[in-house]
């Protein structure tokens, strides 16, 4: 089996230089959106941002979920989880229903609201580069090793080692190991993750399992409903017929008596 690729971001190492931000813009041919990258936010033209919290910098980007909600909800399969790990998007299939945006637990996909032919935009984990065996542009650009790219299991191992070797520095949690079924972007940090604006109320189960439970019932409803309704039709029809016949008979016997 192909090993899934992933990104590990270590907030304790991030210097806040913004090289990832710049590299992403360049690699994806995105126009400039702000003079100050620390004030920018995710948008149709910005796939990753650097955010400054008290003494800590963190990145925000698509988490490339292991069982992505956006992929499961898309009616036409415009979102796709590739074998290598990146979650990519096909604008030619997309209807623009924006269910992916509504459903993403990390609140990532952005829309080209002002366009007449709009697309959903988000980080695609530099799929073209990753496919060719290269690393992502942001990992390559990072001067401190805060963003690194590799196999998901490798990176989990590295993250665990760092947490264990320096419990003073690290908050003891790997964000993305289990959140909503896990993600292919892993984050470790010196502070709890809600302090960095990450969703911490997510269940461990992947969210698509919630709708799967409802969708599973469909065949039952179709088969059971079909049989039930057909039976009801037949029964009630029969009942009405019998009632009508009885009425007829009564009238007949009544008129018979008359004679």
């Amino acid at each position, binding site marked *: 089996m192909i090993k899934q690729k992933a990104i590990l971001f270590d907030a304790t190492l991030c210097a806040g230089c913004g090289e990832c931000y710049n590299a992403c813009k360049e690699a994806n041919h995105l126009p400039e959106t702000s003079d100050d990258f620390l004030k920018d936010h995710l948008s149709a033209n910005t796939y990753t941002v650097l955010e400054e919290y008290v003494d800590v910098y963190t990145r925000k980007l698509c988490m490339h979920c292991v069982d992505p909600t956006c992929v*499961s909800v898309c009616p036409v399969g415009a979102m796709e989880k590739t074998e290598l790990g990146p979650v990519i998007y096909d604008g030619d*299939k997309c*209807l*623009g229903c924006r*269910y992916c945006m*509504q459903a993403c637990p990390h609140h990532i996909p952005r*829309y080209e609201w002002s366009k007449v032919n709009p697309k959903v935009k988000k980080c695609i984990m530099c799929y073209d580069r990753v496919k060719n065996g290269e690393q992502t542009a942001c990992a390559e650009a990072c001067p401190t090793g805060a963003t690194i790219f590799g196999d998901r299991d490798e990176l989990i191992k590295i993250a665990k080692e760092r947490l264990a070797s320096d419990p003073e520095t690290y908050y003891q949690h790997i964000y993305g190991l289990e959140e909503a079924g896990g993600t292919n972007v892993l984050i470790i940090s010196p502070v709890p993750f809600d302090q960095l604006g990450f969703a911490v109320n997510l269940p461990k189960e992947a*969210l698509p399992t919630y709708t799967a439970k409802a969708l599973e019932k469909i065949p039952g409803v179709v088969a059971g409903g079909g049989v039930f309704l057909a039976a009801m*039709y037949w029964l009630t029809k029969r009942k009405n017929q019998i009632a009508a016949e009885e009425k007829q008979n009564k009238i007949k016997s009544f008129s018979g008596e008359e004679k």
Partner: protein
Amino acid sequence: MKHIIPKITFWRVVAVIIIVAGLYSTYLRFTGGLGASTNLSDEFPWGLWIGFDILVGVGLAAGGFTICAITHIFNIEKYKSLARPAILTAFLGYLLVIFGLMYDLGKPYNIWHAIIYWNPRSVMFEVAWCVMLYTTVLFLEFLPIPLEKFGMKKLLSFMKKIGIPIMITGVILSTLHQSSLGSLFLIVPQKMYPLWYSSLLPVYFFISAVGAGLTMVIFEAYLSARAFNKGIEADLLSRIGLYSVIVLMLGLVIKLIDFALTDKIHLLFTINNYTLLFYLEILVGTFVPFGLLIQKRIRENRRWLYASAIMVISGFLLNRLNVSITSITPGAGIKYFPSIYEISVTLMLVTLGMWAFKIIAKNFPVFSTEMHYENRDYELEQKVSESKV
């Protein structure tokens, strides 16, 4: 004397203003995109057009399949006179939903992609298919009305043969997608205010659609009786009203049991805007109409019956907007209120729907039962007319 220029009445003026405003918003929507015409944003990607045009539109059209099931599958004959108006409402309702989707979808010209690109894991995919198929079913159920008008007996006798399987298919499709509209929200547990999130959302959506869909029949009958003086027996309508509030009450009881089982009762005593809206929804939509229509004297009074129907419909509307808009809390301080353009498009759709209903009901045999094709034997008639020659 024929009126070539329609009489100017208050409602006609209002309708014209709404349509003109709606057309302007349409122009904005298709030249400037969703950004220019709506208050939607990356934080709030679904708004009024999903909450009202789709959720309320489909829900209120549920009278179609409910009445069909009662009359044609459970063979309770006396409600037959309600079947046609209900089918017509449903058919127009679904056409408007599809029309409304054209505004809401970012790429409406790709709507047909749902036919060729499949993702059976998606609730939206299932809804799309059900709506497509059910609209076709509704068209077939509606077809006898124009066929009768133009006296096409051969086709009618064919329709009569395939009628029951079509009706059964329609009931199943409706059950599926009415509930699936609720399932759409199952996937955002972390985003929704817990008063509205529940794993039973599909069940609630189904029950409330059946209840509110039934009252739509009362609403229309009243409107059209005023418009055409072709009233339907008041007795039938008041019974429908009673059944509707019983169904809705049942839904509410299930909801309260669910609250108790999932430890949510305390939310009912937390005073905030959510709680207030929730109370408003169940008071207007269920409690008050239930309290009224349970009394024989009140439900046999036309005006009270009509008023209760309007209450149920308003409560239903509020519920769908609460689920799809109010309850969604993507982050602190993020609010959404529809833009004037979104509102005007929605109003235009409602106006077009009422107008189409009126025209069809006026010109086609919708409110008369005697000549319904179900009750006639066309083969026999054919023979009789042949033997005469």
